[in-house]
């Protein structure tokens, strides 16, 4: 066997957490990017700064903030578990939430740049032909921003895969629930003689991240070719 059962569990869990984090934050990410790219309003700089905050804050600060807000004792955590039955504390959903927040700035940045580069005259042309703003968005803006959306999602996925500080602070390290690839590697580093495991899992992390980047490259290139044909 190439990996121990613990390592296999950690790899599978990491993939689950990273896919959930990047896909679940996509709708909000696109909406935020569109607002930042296309709408002018008072307090826009503040929204921009808030979106970028997880990028510059220490991950433990984000993890602690999540623990205080979304834990058993936190206001948001209590509300969600009492009224909606959603619980984040010590569950894989908490790991996904932490990863999603840490990857959100990368997601929004990539999509925002893509939306800003869409020619406004195309949107205006669609509008003069009778399309309502929602239709313009879904038939013109969104398809033309496709490369940025793919790139942003892949970045968010890769960030989620590597997230450690916020996750372990918020939901600790529970096998099968919150002990992700990074957590497992960290655990191995704490034991004398954990080196061989560290190397095996480091290679896995590199392979998954590379595969994600190559896949996004391929998707974008295929889309461009489709546009030319």
């Amino acid at each position, binding site marked *: 066997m190439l990996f121990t059962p613990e390592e296999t569990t950690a790899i599978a869990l990491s993939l689950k957490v990273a896919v959930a984090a990047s896909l679940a934050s996509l709708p909000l990410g696109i909406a935020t990017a569109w607002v930042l790219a296309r709408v002018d309003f008072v307090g826009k700089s503040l929204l*921009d700064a808030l979106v970028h905050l997880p990028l510059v804050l220490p991950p433990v600060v984000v993890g602690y903030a999540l623990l205080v807000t979304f834990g058993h004792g936190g206001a948001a955590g209590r509300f969600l578990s009492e009224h909606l039955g959603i619980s984040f504390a010590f569950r894989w959903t908490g790991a996904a939430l932490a990863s999603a927040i840490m990857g959100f700035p990368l997601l929004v940045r990539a999509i925002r740049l893509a939306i800003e580069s869409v020619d406004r005259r195309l949107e205006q042309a669609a509008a003069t032909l009778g399309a309502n703003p929602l239709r313009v968005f879904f038939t013109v803006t969104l398809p033309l921003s496709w490369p940025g959306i793919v790139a942003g999602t892949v970045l968010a996925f890769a960030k989620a895969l590597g997230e450690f500080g916020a996750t372990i602070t918020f939901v600790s390290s529970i096998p099968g629930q919150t002990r992700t690839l990074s957590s497992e590697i*960290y655990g191995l580093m704490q034991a004398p003689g954990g080196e061989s495991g560290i190397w095996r899992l480091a290679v896995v992390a590199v392979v998954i991240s590379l595969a994600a980047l190559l896949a996004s490259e391929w998707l974008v290139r295929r889309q461009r070719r489709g546009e030319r044909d």
Partner: protein
Amino acid sequence: MPGRRAVAALRRRLRGLAAATALLLAACGGGERPAPGPEGPPPLVVFAAASLTESMDAAARAYTARSGQAVQVSFAGSPALARQIAQQAPADVFVSADTDWMDWLQQRGLVDPASRSGLLGNALVLVAHVDDPAPEVALAPGVDLSPLLGDDGRLAVALTASVPAGKHARAALESLGAWPSVQPRLAETENVRAALLLVARGEAPLGVVYATDAKAEPRVRVLGTFPPDSHPEIVYPVARVAASRHPMAGDFVQWLGSPEAAAIFLDHGFVLR
């Protein structure tokens, strides 16, 4: 026109950046770090296990007051510190939370064996939140912790495979026969203080931490102390780092064993060995 638009876009970006910086600064607050004066010896750098945080700070202050030698203490988990020393981190003295990592450094010739001593001991306790009405628990063979954990509560411990406090907790729970029932209910943290925080914040109903940790946190209450023979002896060894050229390193290690230092460690709940 495009030029003007680009400038406007850039200005928008810069405003965003400025706002982010301002928020960041507000979030950070002021930090202080003692800078050594241009004259006089450089500060003595001590790498100490995270569970020594309050006591080693107090000891360092007392030593500075007595000798005039500035001491900088860097706290982290023993594994991280040991690996940093192995990568030539500029430490003069190392205080580990277990013998494994000190042995690991000694095998590599990175600490001075002649200066090494088993400085302190500690006890392992079961803690709950201070408002938790749970009764005290007699931690004897056959003890069942699951009623105290409730339906979905977790037992907060440091990583049981690697972090010293976690390894000791596992050994103690195993020897009392409680391990099989609590193993699926653990919340493992990267160090013992993070486990303490989970109990203090009410996120986990129970935790296993050192007696000294429980003493440092007013929001937790000790439900019981694990019998000393239920786990390997908890030892905090100290040694001078072999690569250190600091003239006061040996003196500081010796002073840590003096009655003056002992009083400080006793005050923080440690056991003298």
